[in-house]
């Protein structure tokens, strides 16, 4: 029983946090043993757990595993940072484009004003009726042109007819006839 008294004392000391490393070890070995009195059984789990933790060792590939995990983690974070950088780059580009689009749109607008306005003016001018004198001149010019065109047209047709009659006298006969027939 002395032994148990000693254990009780050690436990008291332990709870006070005053045990030495050697005394801790003694307690641990005591609780690791199989014969433990009922009064101490409540504490057994504490010291057993402690014992277990202390006896746990790292597996040999722990370092390599950890390093591998770390590497992976850093890669992921790198990726993330890259993505973030890319996004910021894209948004910067986008903003640049928006700027340029804005400038282009304003230029287009100004150009449109300059191009469309004179055009509508010319259309207006074209719609203005000819003066009496101009109208007469235009009619004469039209008649003259028409006559000339008719003469050219008739001569052309006459030429092809003649060509059809006297093949030997005509150059480019085939082309001409084909042209006329089309």
């Amino acid at each position, binding site marked *: 029983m002395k032994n148990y008294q000693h254990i009780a004392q050690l436990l008291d000391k332990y709870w006070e946090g005053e045990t030495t490393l050697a005394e801790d070890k003694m307690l641990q070995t005591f609780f690791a043993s199989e014969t433990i009195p009922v009064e101490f059984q409540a504490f057994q789990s504490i010291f057993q757990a402690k014992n277990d933790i202390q006896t746990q060792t790292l597996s040999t590939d722990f370092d390599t595993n950890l390093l591998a995990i770390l590497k992976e983690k850093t890669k992921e974070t790198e990726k993330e940072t890259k993505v973030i950088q890319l996004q910021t780059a894209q948004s910067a580009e986008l903003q640049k484009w928006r700027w340029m689009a804005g400038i282009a749109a304003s230029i287009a607008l100004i150009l449109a004003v300059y191009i469309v306005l004179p055009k509508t003016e010319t259309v207006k001018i074209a719609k203005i009726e000819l003066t009496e004198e101009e109208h007469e001149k235009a009619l004469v*010019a039209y008649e003259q042109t028409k006559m000339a065109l*008719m003469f*050219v047209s*008739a001569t052309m047709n006459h*030429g092809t007819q003649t060509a059809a009659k006297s093949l030997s006298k005509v150059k480019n006969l085939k082309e001409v006839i084909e042209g006329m027939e089309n």
Partner: protein
Amino acid sequence: MKYGILIIAFLAMSFQGFSQGDAITKYFNKYTEDTSFTVVYISPKMFEMVARLAEDEVDAEVQQVIKDLKGLRVLVREGDGTKYYNEAVKTLNLKAYEELMTVRDGNQNIRFVIKDNGDIIEELLLLVGSPDEFVMISFVGKIDLDKIAKLAKTADIQGLEHLEKVGKQ
């Protein structure tokens, strides 16, 4: 360097344009004062006005052809046609043109030449010479030969008169 080529090309084009126009203009001007010639000149400005004529005042087919024209010169002389025809053929630089049609029918000579730029005919020159008549017609602009050829076929009496007249000679 690029600009240099462009400028040279532009100059070459303008020179070519001038040389063609000048030969015909010169020839026309030579006879402008000669009262035995009937001279017609219709300027680009005039063609603009013609294009503004109301639809009911013109024939649609004719106007279709006219709207693309920029200039017209007509020179007509009664009598001595062959002489003037030969002179015109000699004087005008016809080598610059592409021959479209040459017809000799009895004592009548007909010569059609064109100047084209790709598919577009930009100038049409017609020379007709017979003992009775000398005719020279030059059209400048965008010329559609098919449309012109169809004019006389779908023509009114005036066109037919010309056709008959040409046929008799």
